[in-house]
């Protein structure tokens, strides 16, 4: 599959490297060139030599999205460090580029839930942390 990851911080870069290792075609878009180094380090070799693609640009620029290959993308992952950017860019991927599978990381639990109701697949790390903390701290032992 062609996987496009927008935002390669800790979460995005890990997902990108594991997708590449699993044999998928992976393209990463990030505004910070440092993210490229993170990918190299996580992979233990050069990202490009391992077959990965990397584009420097911001998520809302259509030119950058197109250069990163959004037209061919089968999976789109919005994992920048900003909820608002992720919510906007994932809707662009969904509505404008008709990417079949779009997943957005949204830290705000209420908006993650509401946008999920609207048909956007959201992953909420905060909600996961809340549930795990409650389980760890309050569960009957």
């Amino acid at each position: 599959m062609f996987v496009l990851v927008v935002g390669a911080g800790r979460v995005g870069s890990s997902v990108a490297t594991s997708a590449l290792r699993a044999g998928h075609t992976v393209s990463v878009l990030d505004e910070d060139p440092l993210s490229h180094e993170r990918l190299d380090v996580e992979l233990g070799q050069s990202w490009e030599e391992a077959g990965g693609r990397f584009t420097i640009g911001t998520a809302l620029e259509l030119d950058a999205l197109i250069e990163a290959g959004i037209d061919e993308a089968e999976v789109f992952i919005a994992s920048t460090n900003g909820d608002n950017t992720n919510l906007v860019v994932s809707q662009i991927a969904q509505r404008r580029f008709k990417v079949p599978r779009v997943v957005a990381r949204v830290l705000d639990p209420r908006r993650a839930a509401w946008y999920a109701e609207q048909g956007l697949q959201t992953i909420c790390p905060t909600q996961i942390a809340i549930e795990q903390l409650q389980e760890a701290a309050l569960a009957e032992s």
Partner: protein
Amino acid sequence: MAGLYVIIAGAGKVGWNLARELIEKGHEVTVLEQDRRRYLTVEQELEHAVQYGDATELWVLERAGIQRADLVVAVTGDDEDNLLICQVAKEKYLCERIIARVNNPRNLEHFKLMGIQPAVSATDLILRLIEHEVPRYGLVHLLDLPEERLEIIELVVAEDAPAAGRRVAEMALPDGALVISVLRNGSGFVPKADTVVEAGDEVLVVLDPGLEQDITREFVGNSSDG
């Protein structure tokens, strides 16, 4: 337009001045500002009409009473924020009227994609005025109604223009163009078919997009071309 409840996201220059004007006109306003220092500055003047918080968060909008808002205006300096604030106002809280500010005109198409209208870009407006080259064509673009496929332009009738001294009915205007008002010596009136347009009149014309050239020919003449 009396007694609206308006929520304004962003207490920058645009938001603050907008709040001031609306309050003066008798409307009820709540401004939302996420920067603590900016909030404290604005609060000295607007007092309870400004609240501290991030307007992209649902509880902040709810605390401001978005359920009863007649109008939500998102004028922060961040286009993603403005887009999402208007999106939840419209689709989650069913607010009937929204207005969004677009900081970067390249983002305008994202607002259109999500159905956020009207989306206003000051940069885009000024750019259009420049592109329409006011002195050359003698024509100012006042308003675009893309949904209705109409625009309104203003121009000054030149001395040697074919329209000068002519009755409205005799003008060689293309189909899809209509003179809707004439300003002369500081006062305006709606012209009738037998109104004679004079050189120096300011004329408002409503037209289908793409007819500017034909209109210019009739009202501006040759001297100011090129």
